């Protein structure tokens, strides 16, 4: 994930023209508070019914979203966004490191997995950009194809890469929030894929 700002830009530059990178996107419609409350609830129900193995992951994701959109649990939202997130990050890093023993980790298969992940990121970026270009053939509100490159699960790193590349083409063009759309979709998609794999490989 730390390599995202190095992996993505060459691919995105290769697949887009300077003019495409300059496309300014129109703001979407204003979303009501009720819709923002319904989204995590409805999305959880639909996703968990379709892929039950994804339930722990997707429900934590949507719970955080619900915390914030309800606007009545400010202290919980603040704890979740700051203290809890940082604590979990520390413990995740520690436990992954602590369980890496040499027999499992210093093997050639691990290098293979690393390159598999790299390859997956490159394909994800490329297909996102290409899909955005295809969508532009059918819509009147043009999508900046760079935004398609954020359709991977590295959030918000990929969106930041898109913001920087959009600003390189036109410094007043701020694609960050537009890129968060595909970025979050990438996270949800990854959770669902993980749930499917967990189910199939049990």
């Amino acid at each position: 994930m730390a390599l995202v700002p190095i992996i993505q830009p060459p691919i995105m530059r290769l697949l887009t023209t300077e003019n495409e990178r300059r496309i300014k996107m129109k703001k979407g419609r204003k979303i009501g508070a009720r819709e923002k409350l319904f989204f995590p609830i409805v999305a959880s129900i639909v996703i968990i019914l379709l892929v039950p193995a994804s339930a722990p992951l997707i429900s934590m994701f949507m719970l955080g979203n619900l915390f914030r959109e309800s606007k009545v649990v400010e202290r919980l939202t603040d704890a979740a966004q700051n203290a809890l997130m940082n604590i979990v990050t520390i413990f995740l890093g520690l436990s992954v490191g602590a369980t890496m023993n040499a027999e499992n980790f210093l093997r050639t298969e691990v290098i293979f997995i690393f390159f598999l992940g790299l390859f997956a990121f490159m394909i994800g970026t490329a297909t996102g950009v290409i899909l955005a270009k295809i969508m532009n053939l059918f819509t009147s509100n043009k999508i900046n194809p760079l935004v398609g490159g954020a359709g991977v699960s590295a959030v918000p790193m990929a969106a930041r890469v898109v913001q920087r590349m959009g600003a390189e083409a036109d410094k007043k063009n701020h694609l960050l929030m537009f890129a968060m759309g595909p970025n979050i979709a990438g996270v949800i998609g990854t959770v669902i894929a993980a749930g499917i794999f967990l189910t199939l490989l049990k």
Partner: protein
Amino acid sequence: MAQEVQAALSGNIWKVLVEVGDTVEEDDEVFVVEALKMEIAIYAPCDGTVSEIRVKKGDAVEEDDVLAVIE
């Protein structure tokens, strides 16, 4: 003719780069907004003098909020 400097996106004011009375040219950086841990520059829409600054460092702003007025 007064023009408003609007926030290009939602975030927090990270830096206020001008004061009331400063002369600015079009496309000068006037604010830096922080969003998703990125520093994003807000540019002056025209030449002129800063007549009002409506935000300070740390304020949360939404897209299209007026941050300053340039005469």
